[in-house]
């Protein structure tokens, strides 16, 4: 054989072999905590959701670039009155236990999600919105709704609506929580409690098969330890890089620090049921007194984005509304109009969690000092997270919070989820997430219309108006959208950090040494 051909053949073989070897390695991902449950409707926290989303699939998918596209559904149609949604399911798909994916399975899962016995936190996604699930034939399902519900497709992309094997759920009972069976690209392999969950590639996957054979999700609570794992190569990916470690990690050639937006918006809400925040001038004054750019730059180390709407970009319904410019003089004038001045300064308490959101207490401190510059005397109080949630969820007459920090992740990618529960007057605490007791009848009407509107352009326009009203009423001091900072070793390519705080490894692969 010709020497040259032999050389190229050998080289090709070696490359092929090294590529094949690279793909059989296990991709190791360090998360902050161990999953709590691997049963999709009960997987409420991000680490659980991340693991589960590799094993089970939803009817629709919320893509990282913000679109809702069919996944387990081949196509769908709405009736002309928009009260019936017909889902035509993909055929020929099997669950990991070999049973068929069909309309009965979908019905079983969606009814299970809303059942009181399961007590899923996400039952509200469909409960009351869908009144009946009718199996038309083996792969067609009809959803009947008492009134049109525009975000229904977005809600069917939410992780808790994933379709899991009914046979496995019936067979395993409570044991199913440790043993998920879905249709996804990876199969559950084992769970070492408190240590890791390991998944193995589903060789019979109906879609594009992943390149990497095994995934291992480690539970590492301490951030410094997570970073050390990536630095030593004992993990390939680590979430939540602390701002102070970003520079050191970025300086290492083998590590890439990736900065991804999140659908989570951070804000202070004002308790408008009480003085002083029942006065819109005061609320506007606070908004003008906060320098958002400075907070993002110096407190978050650049890992955030000043809010210009109550929801984040990438969510359906988002339009840039604008942000209150930093203007201490205007803030002082507004305060003076409301009757506050140097003789009678505005005093109140800011509540902030400590450790729930990125640099939360530091943000509160920055706001406190910026408020001091316009003559406002605010003191900060912090509570442990459980107590904090309980205190902020008290009804109007017992709610002691005046101005309090919270964050909201619009994880369905639809503005309804990010606006209705937070601003509609029916959703005031403790009935919903409107914890500042904000009420505007005009806004209520628009949010209701947007729920039942049929035309996406019309919805978009309604949300634009809604957000403009919210901006004018200033029920919040708008702050910023969080960013997710993730450390990824360069030998991994195609790893996705989804804005809904999910890590996706299905399209990831290991680079061979020649590609690096």
């Amino acid at each position, binding site marked *: 054989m010709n020497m040259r051909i032999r050389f190229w053949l050998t080289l090709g073989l070696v490359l092929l072999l090294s590529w094949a070897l690279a793909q059989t390695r296990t991709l190791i991902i360090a998360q902050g905590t161990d999953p709590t449950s691997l049963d999709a409707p009960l997987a409420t926290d991000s680490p659980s959701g991340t693991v589960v989303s590799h094993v089970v699939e939803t009817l629709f998918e919320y893509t990282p670039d913000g679109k809702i596209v069919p996944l387990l559904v081949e196509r769908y149609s709405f009736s002309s009155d928009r009260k019936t949604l017909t889902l035509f399911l993909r055929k020929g798909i099997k669950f990991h236990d070999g049973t068929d994916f069909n309309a009965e399975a979908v019905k079983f899962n969606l009814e299970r999600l809303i059942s009181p*016995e399961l007590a899923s936190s996400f039952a*509200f996604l469909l409960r009351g919105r869908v009144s009946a699930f009718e199996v038309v034939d083996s792969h067609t399902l009809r959803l009947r709704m008492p009134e049109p519900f525009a975000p229904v497709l977005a809600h069917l992309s939410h992780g808790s609506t994933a379709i899991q094997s009914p046979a496995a759920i019936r067979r395993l009972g409570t044991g199913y929580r440790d043993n998920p069976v879905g249709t996804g690209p990876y199969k559950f392999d084992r769970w070492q*409690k408190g240590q890791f969950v390991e998944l193995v590639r589903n060789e019979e996957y109906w879609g594009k098969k992943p390149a990497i054979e095994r995934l291992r999700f480690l539970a590492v609570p301490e951030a410094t330890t997570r970073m050390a794992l990536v630095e030593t190569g004992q993990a390939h990916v680590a979430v939540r890089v602390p701002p102070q470690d970003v520079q050191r990690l970025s300086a290492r050639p083998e590590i890439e620090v990736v900065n991804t937006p999140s659908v989570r918006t951070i804000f202070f809400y004002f308790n408008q049921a009480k003085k002083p925040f029942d006065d819109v001038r005061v609320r506007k004054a606070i908004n003008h007194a906060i320098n958002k750019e400075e907070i993002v730059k110096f407190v978050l180390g650049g890992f955030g984005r000043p809010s210009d709407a109550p929801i984040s970009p990438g969510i359906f319904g988002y339009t840039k509304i604008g942000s209150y410019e930093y203007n201490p003089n205007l803030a002082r004038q507004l305060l003076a109009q409301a009757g506050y001045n140097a003789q009678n300064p505005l005093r109140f308490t800011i509540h902030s969690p400590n450790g729930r959101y990125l640099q939360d207490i530091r943000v509160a401190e920055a706001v406190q000092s910026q408020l001091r510059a316009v003559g406002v005397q605010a003191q900060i109080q912090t*509570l442990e997270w459980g107590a904090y949630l309980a205190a902020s969820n008290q009804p109007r007459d017992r709610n002691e919070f005046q101005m309090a920090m919270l964050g909201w992740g619009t994880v369905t990618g639809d503005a309804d989820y990010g606006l209705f529960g937070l601003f509609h007057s029916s959703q005031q605490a403790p009935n919903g997430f409107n914890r500042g007791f904000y009420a505007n009848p005009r806004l209520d009407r628009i949010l209701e219309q947007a729920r039942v509107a049929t035309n996406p352009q019309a919805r978009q326009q309604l949300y634009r108006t809604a957000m403009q009203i919210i901006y004018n009423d200033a029920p919040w001091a708008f702050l910023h959208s969080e960013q997710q900072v993730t450390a990824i070793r360069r030998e991994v390519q195609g790893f996705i950090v989804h804005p809904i705080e999910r890590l996706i490894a299905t399209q990831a692969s290991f680079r061979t040494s020649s590609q690096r």
Partner: protein
Amino acid sequence: MTTYIFRRLLTVIPTLLGVLLAVFLMVRLAPGDPAQLLAGEFATPETLADIRQRFGLDQPWYTQLGLYTLNVLQGDLGESVRTRKPVTYELSQYFPNTLRLTLGAMLVALLIGIPAGIIAAIRPGTIFDLLAMLGALIGVSMPVFWFGLMAILIFSVQLGWFPVAGTGTLRHLILPAITLGIGTAAILARMTRSAMLEVLSQDYIRTARAKGVAGRVVIFKHALRNALIPVVTITGLQFGGLLEGAVITETVFAWPGIGQLLVGSILARDYPVVQGAVLLIAVAFILINLIVDLLYGAIDPRIRYD
């Protein structure tokens, strides 16, 4: 002896009931609702009601306490609110790891602490004594958290000798065991030193020396055995302390033990798991104390149990 053990075991029952009652009331007095935490920021009132009903949290506290006590007596510790698995299952997944870590730390403490104390005592005022006591001072003053992170940065990241975190092999155990054991080692060293010094000044030691017994025999056979009694007491107490101290070490080294489980459960107001874990630690503590008391008899023939 048997009667003694039996009597001691009988006193365990009221102790455990007391622990149970105290923990039960404490977790419920803390603000924050488990249903709210479980449902998160998204909670709707219906969801909260579902969850409360599912876990019996809508019942008055005395009903809950009664039911809980009855179940515990039958060996049922309830179901975790967070993971929705039986608490006994959760504990069985985590406790063996804590036991391994604690035993490793105890070994580290004994291997460093007692020899250091002996050397310091037989050469008081020398450079050995000074170094041992300086080491002990540093050992007790060093925050566990900081020490653990430094150990990771130096021995795992820089030198690459040990894995950063996790469990599995003996090499995984070394750094966490040293981190957890170093404080106890320091206490044991100081304790051993002062006990040894006291014994060494006793008349019978002088007599033994005067009779011409070899120095090594005096130290190990006559002095050490008598000096060990307070050391054993402290070791027993420290062992219980290590079970608690594991909380921090386990977090730093991502060690899946009862400490990690307990912290996570407290933050999530996972009442059944918190109660179960505290009960388990209480049982371990009581058993260790019993073992320590029995050990006295083995070390010191003057102590008898009737």
